[in-house]
């Protein structure tokens, strides 16, 4: 059988890839997508650890994470649409109202 540590390492790789994606991209939508990547990497880590420890709690947590991520994606996308309506652009360099 494949040891769970392999899966864990994979999840860390995916997480780090998500971070890099966040910093590379310049528009809000793809940045949001990279956040989803990070969430999924965390899910993978949980499941692999659930298998490693033999308890089922990891899978339950993933269940909830998926649900919450769905709700969060809905709201996040709604906000992105609102921003687009206001500024006609979703580039992050145009959004700096919080300056100062």
């Amino acid at each position, binding site marked *: 059988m494949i040891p769970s540590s392999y899966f864990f390492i994979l999840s860390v790789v995916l997480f780090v890839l*998500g971070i890099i994606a966040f910093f590379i991209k310049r528009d809000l939508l793809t940045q949001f997508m990279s956040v989803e*990547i990070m969430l*999924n990497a965390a899910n993978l880590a949980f499941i692999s650890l659930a298998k490693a420890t*033999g308890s089922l709690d990891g899978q339950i947590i993933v269940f909830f994470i998926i649900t919450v991520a769905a709700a969060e994606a809905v*709201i996040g996308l709604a906000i992105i649409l609102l921003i687009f309506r206001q500024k006609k652009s979703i580039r992050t360099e145009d959004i700096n109202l919080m300056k100062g």
Partner: protein
Amino acid sequence: MGHFLFFLLATICVGAVLGMIISRNQAYSALFLVLAFASMGGLFGLLNAPFIAVVQIIIYAGAIMVLFVFVVMMINVREGLPSEKKKWIFAVSLILAFVLFLEIILAASGRLSSLSGAEAADIGNPTNLGRLLFTRYLYPFEITSILIIAALVGALVLLKKKAKE
């Protein structure tokens, strides 16, 4: 067999994510992501979590990414966006991400090997999950349903256009 599947699915996943990062077209990025999530579902299956695997594919790959595609369509950006202009942020984040990677591996390295794997192949089946969900995790379960409704209503409220007078 298991090894082969693992490496196949892992390669597809990482490859899809890399594709998502590199591609300039947002629609392509979204589609790459769908591929990544689907292979992730496969990986879940390998980890004795069949129910979660199916949930991942249906909800994540099937519903959330479809939302993303819808939004891409609505935003309708013509030209693709190049990558980050300021190179230094790129470099710094690359380094930091790498450091983070090392740190987490380091942190977990000692522990993981000492954990004993459960060999029961059917721990992740719906019956067991359901049992847990409705007993120990009943509260979160019910509250999550309220959360979903709240998100729904919230999205509607946020995006409601003012009625034109």
